[in-house]
Each structure stands twice: as C-alpha cells, then as structure tokens.
C-alpha cells in the first residue's frame, strides 16, 4: 500500500474511501482499517499541519518585521508550536456566566468539523485523498457555510456585544464573498468540464488552467485569492476578529482548548483555500506540463506529484502571509463595496468570458 501512496504510475486515482468501498464487499475488517486510517490520518495531519503553519506564520511574520521570531524551543524554535499547544491545553477553560453554554460548546466543534470535511476531499497526490466526491467543488463551498455557522454561534453564545458584532461581520462577509469564490470556481469548472477535483486535476495534463485559460484564468485566480482571503477572515479582511476594533471579535470570550479549535480551524482553512487554489489553477499535484512537449513533460514527471502539490500550496500560503503582514485592515463598508461593486461584476464578466472561451475553444490546447 505504501508504494501505492508514493508512486504515481499512470496517475492512477485510488482514494481511501474507494479502497474502503472495494474492501467492504470482501473483508469488512480491511474496510474498517481504511476508515480508521482515514480518520486517524486526517486528525494527525490536521494537528501537525496546524502547528507547522502556525510556526511558519510566526517565522514569516518575524522576518517581515526584521526580527527572528521563535528561537528558543528547539532548533530555530521548531518546537515552539508544541509548547504553545501544551500551554493552550493547560489553560483554564472559561465559560462566561451568561453564555448559552450548549452553543458556546458547539461553536468551535462546528468550526473544526467544517475544516475536517473540507480537508478530506483535497487531492494531495494521485492516491493521497480521503474521498473523491464527484461534486467536490460544490461540496467545498457547502461546508464553508458550516464554518461560518460556528463563528456565528460563537459570537451569539458568548453574550458579548463585541463578539456579536464580530459574528455579524463574519456572517455578512462570508455571504458576500462566497459569491465571488463560487464565481471563480465556476470558471474552472467550465474549463475543466467537471465538478470533481480529481478530474479537474486530470484535465490539466496539458497545462495548468492559470495559463491555459490565459486572461480568464488569471482574473479568476485573483478573484479567488482575494475573496478566499476574505472568507478566511485573514488580514486585510480580518474584520470579524479585528483585534484593535472588536478586541478579538467572535472569539473574545474563548480560551484554552476551545480557542485553539478556532485557531487551528483558521490555519487549516488557510491551507485548504491554498490547496484548492493550487488544485484549480496550478494543477494540484499535476507537474508542469506543456501539451505536446512529451520529453519536457516526462522530465517534469520525475518530481513526485506530492512535492508539486506541496510546493504550489506553500506558494499560495506564503502569498497570503505576505499580504497579511503588509496590509492594514479595510473598513467594514469598504469591504462590502469591494465585493459588491468590484469583485462581483468582475466575477460575472469573467464567467461570461469563460463561457465564451469554452464554447469557442479559444483556450490553449483544447484538444481533449
């Protein structure tokens, strides 16, 4: 099985859920094993990735600010995240007296569940994917709503006006920017002719959509990056948290483990958005191919697809961090104006252009 996970002979797609389904008929125990592997793997991946991303964010921020960042715990502070996690776990768990305790408890769970659900359908390499839903793109958009439900619940149940304001901002922001994200996802769906993430990756065998779809692809990519940064509540769109305005917004009242859930969800969501961007626009695990240049393509194939995926995702993650540590925050009405008066019209025009291009086959390598 291990070879299967690492090699990619002819890009055979075999997700963990497929394996479990295949095994179910013959050997239920094997199916249960695959399921456990999927669950445990996702959980372990989630926490490790979260800690790694937090470390990277701190290091990137530090170097943008001419300082070193964490240096004490482990080599160059590598273990800092573990120390932080331990600290967070030991912290007193405070529930405000007048909070709606049930919802207060449920909110971070909602957030983390949404994150896990989105994480499982990301194709990280040909055989490293938990589920390959044929409605992947819709699914990703749908579970995003779960995450924002968690934020809304957190803001409401804290019984704190600042939290409520943060939650309201989160809700308005999510509903608005979700449209733009979906519009840019639809462009790629049009080009690839499929909603399934693995098929979208496969469709980029002759080149990534960002250059095969030329102008349309680039515009869609920028709309996607801007609006998914907004959906992630990352600066310059971090209004739901807005430390200097709302003192932390929806998670003002959270501490300890519950806070770490939000924190983790936020960082994993950044990874998911980056991975989705990489999958849709940069071909996911697909190496850099140019249609027709077989020799060049086979040289590119020498780099394992997992590395391609990691590299592209890391690039987008870095892009988001770069933006975060450079830009100040927008005001709430400017945020809405950006979406409704700029991104939305651009997204619609771009979608029409994409439809025209797909019908007239004006993109590169329309052969297949």
């Amino acid at each position, binding site marked *: 099985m291990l070879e299967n996970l690492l090699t990619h002979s002819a890009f055979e797609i075999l997700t963990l859920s497929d394996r479990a*389904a295949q095994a*179910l*008929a013959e050997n*239920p125990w094997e*199916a249960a094993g695959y399921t456990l592997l999927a669950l445990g793997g996702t959980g372990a991946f989630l926490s490790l990735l979260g800690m790694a991303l937090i470390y990277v964010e701190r290091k990137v921020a530090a170097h943008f600010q001419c300082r070193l960042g964490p240096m004490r715990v482990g080599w160059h502070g590598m273990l800092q995240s573990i120390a932080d996690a331990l600290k967070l776990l030991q912290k007193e768990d405070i529930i405000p007296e007048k909070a*709606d305790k*049930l*919802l207060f408890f*449920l909110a971070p769970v909602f957030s983390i569940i949404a994150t896990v659900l989105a994480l499982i359908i990301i194709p990280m390499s040909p055989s490293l994917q938990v589920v390959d*839903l*044929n*409605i992947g793109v*819709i*699914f990703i*958009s*749908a*579970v*995003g*709503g*779960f995450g*924002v*439900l968690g934020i*809304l*619940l957190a*803001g*409401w*149940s804290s019984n704190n006006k600042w939290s*409520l304001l943060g*939650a*309201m901002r989160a*809700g*308005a922001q*999510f*509903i*608005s920017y*979700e449209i733009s994200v979906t519009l840019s996802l639809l462009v790629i769906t049009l080009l690839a002719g*499929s*909603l*399934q993430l693995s*098929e979208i990756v496969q469709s980029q065998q002759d080149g990534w959509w960002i250059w095969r779809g030329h102008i349309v692809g680039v515009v869609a990519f920028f709309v996607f990056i801007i609006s998914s940064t907004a959906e992630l509540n990352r600066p310059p769109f971090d209004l739901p948290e807005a430390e200097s305005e709302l003192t932390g917004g929806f998670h003002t009242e959270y501490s300890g483990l519950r806070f770490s859930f939000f924190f983790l969800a936020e960082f994993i969501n950044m990874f998911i958005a980056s991975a989705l961007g990489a999958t849709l626009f940069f071909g996911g695990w697909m190496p850099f191919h140019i249609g027709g240049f077989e020799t060049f393509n086979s040289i590119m194939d020498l780099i394992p697809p997992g590395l391609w995926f990691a590299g592209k995702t890391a690039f987008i993650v870095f892009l988001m961090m770069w933006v975060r540590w450079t830009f100040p925050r927008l005001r*709430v*009405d400017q945020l*809405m*104006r950006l*979406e*409704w*008066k700029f991104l939305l019209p651009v997204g619609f025009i771009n979608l029409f252009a994409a439809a025209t291009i797909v019908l007239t086959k004006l993109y590169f390598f329309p052969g297949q």
Partner: protein
Amino acid sequence: MNPAELTHTIVFYGLALVSIVAALLVVTVKRIFRAAVALATVLVCGAGFYILLDYDFIAGIQLLVYVGGIVILIVFAVMLTSSLEDTEIRPSKSRKALGIISSLGFLATALIAFQSTSFPLSAPTPEQPSDVALEIGRKLLGYGSDGYVLPFEIISLLLLSAVIGAIVVARNPLKKSSDLSGQSEQSDGSAT
C-alpha cells in the same frame, strides 16, 4: 445481508434517528437560536439521505443552499432582531389549537399521500452522478416540453424584485437619520 448493505442500513437509521430528534427540537426548544442549530442538523441529515441514495449533486446543493445559505440567514435575522434571546415564546391558546389542527391536517395529508403512492422497490440504477449535474443543467435551461427555462426565469424575476424591495425598505430609515445629523452617511453596500 452483506457488509455494504449492513453499513448502509446502520447509517440510514442513525441519520433517521438524529433527524427526527433534531426536528422535534426545532419546534420544542425555547431559545430560538438553538432551534436554528437544530434546523441545520435536520437539513444536514437530509443531505446525508441524498448521499445514501447516491444523489451527490442534490446533497451538495442541499448543503450549499440550506445550510450555507438559509440557516445562516435565519441566524443572521435572529441576531438582528432585538432582545429575542430572553423571551420565551408562549403562544396563546387559540394559536395552540390552530397549530394542532394544521399539523394534524398536514400529517393526514402526508399519510394519505404515502398510502396512495406505490414506491417502486427496484429503483433504476442512478446514472453517473456527474451526468446528473449535466442533465439538471440541460433541463433547467432547456425550452420545449422537458425544459424548465420559463419557471426558472420567473423565479429569478421574483427574486430580483424581492432584492430590490428589500433595498427600498432598508434604505428609508437610513435617509432619515442622515438628514437629522448633518454629516453625510457614508455609502455602503452592506448586506440588505
């Protein structure tokens, strides 16, 4: 029963149980916000049923529209309404009676419909689900005997007028307050 069917059945009954309990909670819970969460659970269970039936596309749309859209809007509306958090909703007796009558009527209708419909047990194997999306798209935008473009357009007109109406309704108080205070209201396109 082979393991695949067994899992299927277990998942089905699990979902059914959760959705019945959540549906009961929606109507019995006193705090409106919790009811909204229970409603979300019911809708998610609905999506689960669709997935069990291999209608992935419908499931996705169910999640996208109901959980990602409607429930969030409901929650949003609850937040905007003032001081609903503490008021326990105690309907009057006549309202209670009306409610009982209408729900009994609905139950009767559902039972009659259930009785009079024959459910074909050996359902035709669903088509390749990605083609389902394609087929839905064709039907939705097709004209002629099997197309639904006319209702589709009518619904979009209805939605458009609703959106414009909402903007008109929401604009009025803003204007008044900016008249009162000399400073001009900063324009914003915030969610209406």
